[in-house]
């Protein structure tokens, strides 16, 4: 039979295709619907947080940082509760990473703070002697891209029913309503409001001034995102 296939390229190709396509169907499909259901306490990203996520991706922080706490005592001691599938329901793309040159960031919002990130992102060595993380000084001057963020929010709300402007249940029994704007201008307003909350805890005067002028430096969005990781 194989000899025959080797003389008939079309059927050979079909044979190869069947051999390789099989596994994906069996392994990926059965859990598709189940894995993507959010757990209680998981809310969509706010406008500024999502903009910060884009900054994170743009700078490939995932090259060095994972966002996946494995169920080992040593990891839950270091990073907090192990990850649950539903916590990633609004992560498009997922950002688990595959290399921990730096620590996991899945729950970094629990144990690091705005002012610490500010110092750290500007000059990691100044807070952590011996750090090999690069300094991300340009984030303090580049502006975050709120337009694209808003377009993404609209897209996921429409195609994946991400519950913006809806009550989602929180762990303590309360509900959270993450706001998505009705227009681009409103999106900028929402982001700016969030940015002001972040800069209240920041020291850098240029960044504070920028936000007062109505601009949003990338660092502000990034910190909002890092703080949201809990």
């Amino acid at each position, binding site marked *: 039979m194989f000899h025959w296939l080797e003389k008939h390229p079309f059927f050979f190709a079909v044979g190869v295709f069947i051999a390789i396509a099989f596994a994906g169907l069996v392994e990926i499909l059965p859990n598709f619907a189940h894995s993507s259901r959010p757990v209680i306490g998981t809310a969509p990203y706010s406008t500024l947080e999502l903009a910060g996520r884009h900054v994170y991706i743009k700078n490939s922080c995932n090259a060095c940082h994972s966002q996946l706490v494995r169920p080992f*005592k040593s990891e*839950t001691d270091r990073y907090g509760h192990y990850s649950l599938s539903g916590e990633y329901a609004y992560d498009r793309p997922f950002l688990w990473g595959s290399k921990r040159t730096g620590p996991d960031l899945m729950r970094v919002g629990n*144990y*690091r*703070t705005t*002012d610490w990130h500010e110092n750290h992102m500007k000059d990691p060595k100044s*807070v952590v002697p011996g750090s090999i993380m690069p300094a991300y000084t340009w984030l303090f001057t580049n502006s975050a891209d709120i337009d694209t963020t808003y377009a993404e929010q609209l897209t996921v709300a429409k195609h994946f029913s991400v519950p913006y402007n809806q009550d989602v249940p929180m762990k303590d029994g309360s509900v959270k309503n993450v706001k998505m704007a009705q227009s681009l201008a409103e999106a900028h307003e929402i982001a700016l409001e969030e940015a002001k909350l972040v800069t209240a*805890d920041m020291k850098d005067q240029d960044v504070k001034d920028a936000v007062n002028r109505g601009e949003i430096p990338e660092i502000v969005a990034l910190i909002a995102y890092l703080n949201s990781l809990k």
Partner: protein
Amino acid sequence: MNKLYIGGAIFIALMVVLTYLSVGTSKGGFNGDIVNMLAIAGAIALVTITVFVVIKYVRQMQQDNATGELANESWDGIGEYKNSLPTGWAVMFLLTMVWGMWYWTIGYPVNAYSQIGEYNEDTAVHNAKFEVKYKDITGDRLVEMGESVFLAECKVCHGINADGIDGKAANLNHRLDAASVKHVIENGSNYQLLGSEMPMPDRNGLFNNNTGALITDAEIEVVSHFVANGMSGEGADIFIGACSACHGEDGKGMEYVAPNLASFTPALVVNVLNHGKKGIIGVMPKFDRLNDKQKEAVGAYITDISK
């Protein structure tokens, strides 16, 4: 050619020794951890098997001759023998397939195993072990334990010497600095430093009994330095007048009323770890991840270093 085998053996030994030197000498080391053992075993198996299997074939290149019946076809001059499968390879292939099917259907406890279950068991074992141990850890040992917590969890913000890294976090070698005191007087404080809700008023609620008036800018300046100086120097009178009612005349605080301003206490640190706080320096996060003993220990450590 024995040279090859000797070379291979030396190479394997070298890898193992180097790895041991690097891992075995570090704190914790192999730790009797089964996962560590398996990883090392796997690593050793990897070099050993590869090196010796390849040497086996190299010896065939050196000693054997190519034989067999050639197939009729040839592609661009490349012929093909009709040799049968190498026995070792064929047997291993069959074995792994059989093993795979066995493991999948019988060996792997499809319903009984879950990685979370495994985690829960490991954690329970760990906790049980240390619960027993924790009873005996007191005094200097507790401080030592606290240092170990501090170095793993706190030094990224407070610095390896707990000096706060140029004002980026609180300097824990002494109780308070003047700027923090001043900030608290001006803005009040409400971070459950006593363990429960018990706010300190801001300056609009702070009367200096000596003058009978609200505390003034000048007085705030002086008393802040007084507190930061370890309750000494100029300003004792203002402190008595405005603060002692709550913080005590010696500044050592009063239970349920106000915290100790003269020195750290383990209880204060534990409260900070439970609730976090925000001050002029920045935000101190709360630390849910630490267990009670760890919090107590790091409290003892900070109390000790700030004496």
